[in-house]
């Protein structure tokens, strides 16, 4: 096992990655414990969480912005507990899901991105400008008035990403964002994620998407079984799934 103690890692000041800390996390659905004793401090810019189906990785990711509260233990993002400071944490942490169809709310592409800013207090002009800039950045500008649900899978995931990034989060948590995509679209989404300024915490089965990542956490049966650089941790994951 290549587990490393990272509890001493601290955010390095303005512009540095946030620190997501899990302390004594245990979580169960009914009688089944899906997470059992997770202690992690995640402060690198690119972090991958891998594990077999049912290993608890999506549950762990959802705890970061308070979608799931742990049965035991605490989660903090830069010292803020999502269960008590949900609004502040969600302003820092953006989340994209496996199926972008479930994340799209508005009927057209531009409206969906603008929806993310509806409670921002910004003027309509500023919201329109930021929406247009984000669509341009994601390569979706030509599709601004296109029905969102008629986009391709890759375009939908880029739209979901645009809708999250337009709020300017410091951290992006992505739960298997390329699982439903074909190879070309998966590569496009992975490249877009790799080029982001944000700290990225990605749950995935697709190891290609983890190229250039700083740290990989491997989960098995709700426990961390490896934690380190891709070179150190991924062989353990391969052992688990073969």
């Amino acid at each position, binding site marked *: 096992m290549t587990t490393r103690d990272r509890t001493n890692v601290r955010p390095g000041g303005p512009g540095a990655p946030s620190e997501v800390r899990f302390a004594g996390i245990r979580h169960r659905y009914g009688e089944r414990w899906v997470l059992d004793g997770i202690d992690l401090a995640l402060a690198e810019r690119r972090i991958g969480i891998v594990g077999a189906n049912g290993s608890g990785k999506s549950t762990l990711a*959802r705890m970061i*912005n*308070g*979608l799931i509260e742990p049965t035991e233990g605490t989660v903090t993002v830069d010292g803020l507990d999502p269960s008590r400071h*949900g*609004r502040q944490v*969600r*302003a820092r942490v*953006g*989340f994209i*899901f496996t*199926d972008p*169809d*479930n*994340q*799209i*709310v*508005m*009927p*057209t592409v531009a*409206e969906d991105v*603008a*929806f*993310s800013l*509806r*409670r921002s207090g910004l003027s309509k002009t500023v919201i329109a400008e930021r929406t247009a800039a984000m669509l341009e950045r994601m390569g979706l500008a030509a599709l601004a*008035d296109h*029905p969102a*649900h*008629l986009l391709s899978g890759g375009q939908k995931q880029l739209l979901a990403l645009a*809708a*999250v990034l337009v*709020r300017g989060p410091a951290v992006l948590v992505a739960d298997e964002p390329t699982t439903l995509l074909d190879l070309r679209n998966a590569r496009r989404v992975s490249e877009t994620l790799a080029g982001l300024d944000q700290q990225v915490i990605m749950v995935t089965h697709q190891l290609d998407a983890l190229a250039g990542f700083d740290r990989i956490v491997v989960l098995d049966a709700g426990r961390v079984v490896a934690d380190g650089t891709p070179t150190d941790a991924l062989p353990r994951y391969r052992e688990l799934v073969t």
Partner: protein
Amino acid sequence: MTGTPIGLFHPGVSPLHRIPAGIKLLGMVLSVVGVVLLHRWWQLAIAAAVTTILFALARIPPRVAWSQLRPLRYLIVLVAALQCWLAGWHAAVMVCGTIVVTVALAALVTLTTRVTAMLDALGGVLRPLRRLGVDTDRIGLLLALTIRCIPLVAGIVSAVGEARTARGVGFSIRALGAPVIIRSLRSADALGEALIARGADD
């Protein structure tokens, strides 16, 4: 899926697109009330002709216009048959014509108005209710989600139908209804989770 599903904006710069959403919504309500109050077939024919002209004025392609009305076809056949049997052909023409024209008018508003513009208009109308503690943003969100769910549920029905066909199962309400309801509820859960993650309630 062909054409534009019900409830979707059709981009354009026509005079109808440029009319403020609030005026269009008010116009739609008044028009629908007017159509419902018609008693003669020729009055309904004039209303249908005016509606057709409005679609042309909005530069809505016939294919898109038809896609708005096509889902009504089975209902219209059923209602026409019942009305002919119970009340005669005149009643059948009036009832079916009224349904088609009113749905077409509503579709014309949604085709030429962005949902965000409708939400803004609705927010303006509901603003006084804020003093009574009503969360008018949430009402607007409810409207947006209702419109969003039309293609979402249509997609689920289509996928379940394809799966049923692929397995060689004949038509069965239970075989269609049960998976559609289960998948719709799962989608609703996932959509709710995504709304929280997007800060919709913050």
